[in-house]
């Protein structure tokens, strides 16, 4: 029989190998026996580590080098009998939403875990009318602004030009959650070229801008149909699941009916932010 002291030490050991990462108001607990890996996550997700939030999802994580081919393999996300299966060259994961539990076997790299986390969040958000978007985002004067575009459109540039009174939520992947009659953007640790995690704050979304570099700063309204098309092209979506595809499609139309969507043509200098906020 364990002594009271021994029990406490055991409990401490369990606590030490657990971490809750809360992004977009969804706490995800990671349990692992790999202390080095957990330490790496602690550093990588600093600012998004929750001290006491009860988890909405709990993953048992096993790290392994053997049996994984490469990071560049295709992602396969499938749903069968209430379980999601996530597979890529460097990870295999299972997640059962009903029990809120899952398991992950992966290369002990932060970008492998980051990919699993991104996919899980796309699945969580899709059921709630939200999505992850290829977009930088920032809060200014209490309102969130999203800046979307393909690689090279200016997400990193507009992020790096943000004035001191703006809170950068992300330079790469925006977290969009439907809330009441509108949408809210949350900060994420999902980084792009700036390699700088966003602020862990949120605000109602005031506008979505599609970026275009030009020889003047100006904002043009985009027709709703074109806005929906452009939005759909920038939503992160991995699941091979008809129901989820359909709900994401309708979420995009819902978003453009509630949030102004515009094109922001800009000269790459700080004056562009005079138009925002």
């Amino acid at each position: 029989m364990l002594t009271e002291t021994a029990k406490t030490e055991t409990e401490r050991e369990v606590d030490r190998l657990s971490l809750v990462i809360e992004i977009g108001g969804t706490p995800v607990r990671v349990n692992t026996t790999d202390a080095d890996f957990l330490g790496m996550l602690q550093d990588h997700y600093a600012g998004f580590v929750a001290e006491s939030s009860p988890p909405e999802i709990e993953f048992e994580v096993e790290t392994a080098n053997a049996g994984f081919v490469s990071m560049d393999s295709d992602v396969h996300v499938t749903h069968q009998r209430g379980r999601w299966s996530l597979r890529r060259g460097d990870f295999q994961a299972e997640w059962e939403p009903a029990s809120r539990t899952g398991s992950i076997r992966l290369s002990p790299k932060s970008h492998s875990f980051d990919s699993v986390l991104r996919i899980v969040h796309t699945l969580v958000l899709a059921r709630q009318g939200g999505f992850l978007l290829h977009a930088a985002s920032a809060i200014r004067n209490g309102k969130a602004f999203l800046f979307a575009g393909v690689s090279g459109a200016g997400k990193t540039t507009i992020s790096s030009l943000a004035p001191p009174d703006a809170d950068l939520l992300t330079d790469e992947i925006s977290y969009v959650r439907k809330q009441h009659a509108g949408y809210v953007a949350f900060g994420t640790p999902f980084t792009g070229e700036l390699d700088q995690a966003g602020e862990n704050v949120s605000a109602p979304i005031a506008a979505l801008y599609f970026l275009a570099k030009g020889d003047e700063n100006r904002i043009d309204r985009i027709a709703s149909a074109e806005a929906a098309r452009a939005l759909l092209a920038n939503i992160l979506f991995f699941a091979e699941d008809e129901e989820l595809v359909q709900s994401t499609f309708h979420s995009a139309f819902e978003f453009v009916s509630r949030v102004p969507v515009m094109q922001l043509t800009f000269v790459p200098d700080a004056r562009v932010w005079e138009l925002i906020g």
Partner: protein
Amino acid sequence: MSKLYLARSPRVAARSLDGEMMIMSGRDSTLFTLNKTATILWQAADGATPLDEIVERKICPEFDVEPATALKDAETLAHELASREILQVSEEPIAPNSTPGASR
């Protein structure tokens, strides 16, 4: 010549916005924007109305075209939409919510 019946595939999501009909495949997330004729076919595809009746009532009044030519073009378009799993096409009326296996 046998009649053709059209029904909307249950495996797609569809929305009309600013007069544009957009369809997304549930299978592979491909997004389609339908032209005017395809939109008419989609909207009229109730599984019960034969294609020649759709052409006569909806397409001929909209476009200055011979009924026989319009029907031939509409058949080609319907089969193209079926090949992309947007519509189901059958020589028999199609029951609501019938499986994609009923299309051809």
